């Protein structure tokens, strides 16, 4: 049963990732990406990270993709469907990527870990994932948490400066 779900989710993820990269129309790419994000959220559910699945849907599918759609509508680019979609050097990049993929597949085959932390699946199931994550996050990762707020501040200021210059 678990293998069936994993197979379905990974098949859809791989097919829709390829469609994102190979489609000619940027809006179609964004919509394929939406399907792919939902299935990645399914993978997170299988890995017992249900809060991350929710974050994936809320932030990626709900916010970032909306931003992408806004950017496409703002640019008002005439889709040159007949124009060349790939750069001249695409066979070279395909070769690089194929080599990298082969290396990764061969080196990761049969990879297992013997490390055992303190958060076993049974323990997480008992106190729920969100609570476990919150406990670990807000006791041991205070500095990254505050730095994340500064990164978000930079995002607000930077995007307003860039967009406002265009407006005036």
């Amino acid at each position, binding site marked *: *049963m*678990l293998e069936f*779900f994993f197979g379905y989710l990974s098949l859809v993820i791989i097919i829709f990732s390829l469609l994102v990269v190979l489609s000619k129309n940027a809006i179609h790419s964004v919509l394929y990406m939406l399907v792919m994000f939902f299935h990645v959220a399914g993978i997170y*559910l*299988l*890995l*017992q990270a*249900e*809060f991350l699945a929710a*974050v994936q849907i*809320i*932030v990626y599918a*709900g*916010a*970032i993709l*909306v*931003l992408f759609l*806004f*950017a496409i*509508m*703002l640019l*008002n680019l*005439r889709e040159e469907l007949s124009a060349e979609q790939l750069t001249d050097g695409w066979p070279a990049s395909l070769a690089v990527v194929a080599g990298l993929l082969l290396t990764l597949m061969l080196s990761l085959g049969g990879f297992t870990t013997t490390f055992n932390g303190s958060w*076993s*699946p049974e323990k997480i*199931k008992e106190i729920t994932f*969100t*609570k476990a*994550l*919150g*406990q670990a*996050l*807000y*006791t041991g990762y*205070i500095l990254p*948490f*505050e730095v*994340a*707020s*500064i990164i*978000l*501040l930079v*995002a*607000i*200021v930077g*995007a*307003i400066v860039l*967009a*406002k210059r*265009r*407006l005036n």
Partner: protein
Amino acid sequence: MPGRYLPTEYLPVAIFIAISIAFGLGALIMGSMVRLRRPYREKLMPYESGIDPVGEPRVRFSIRFYIIAMLFVVFDVEAIFMYPWAIVFDKIGLFALIEMIIFIVILLVGYVYALKKEAFRWE
């Protein structure tokens, strides 16, 4: 043992998604099987003697939409950080409150900046 976990409590969600997809697709397929198909040119014209469209369908949007969407993304992420904090608040207590106040104050600086730059004004 990791790797054996099956999220059984999400089975209703899976059933719900399956039913909604089946309902949507089923309605479309049933409709296309039953209905007549007679396309002719008048059906593509504007409704009730409307004006013929001029120019391209893709109009250029105002960049204000983008500023609003961008602010939404950033504050969405802020709200996401608050969710696990609210769940464990009773366990960590005052320390968590101070952490979150610092977090919100830093983001409030960005909010005040957006307000000062009139990012929310829509003239």
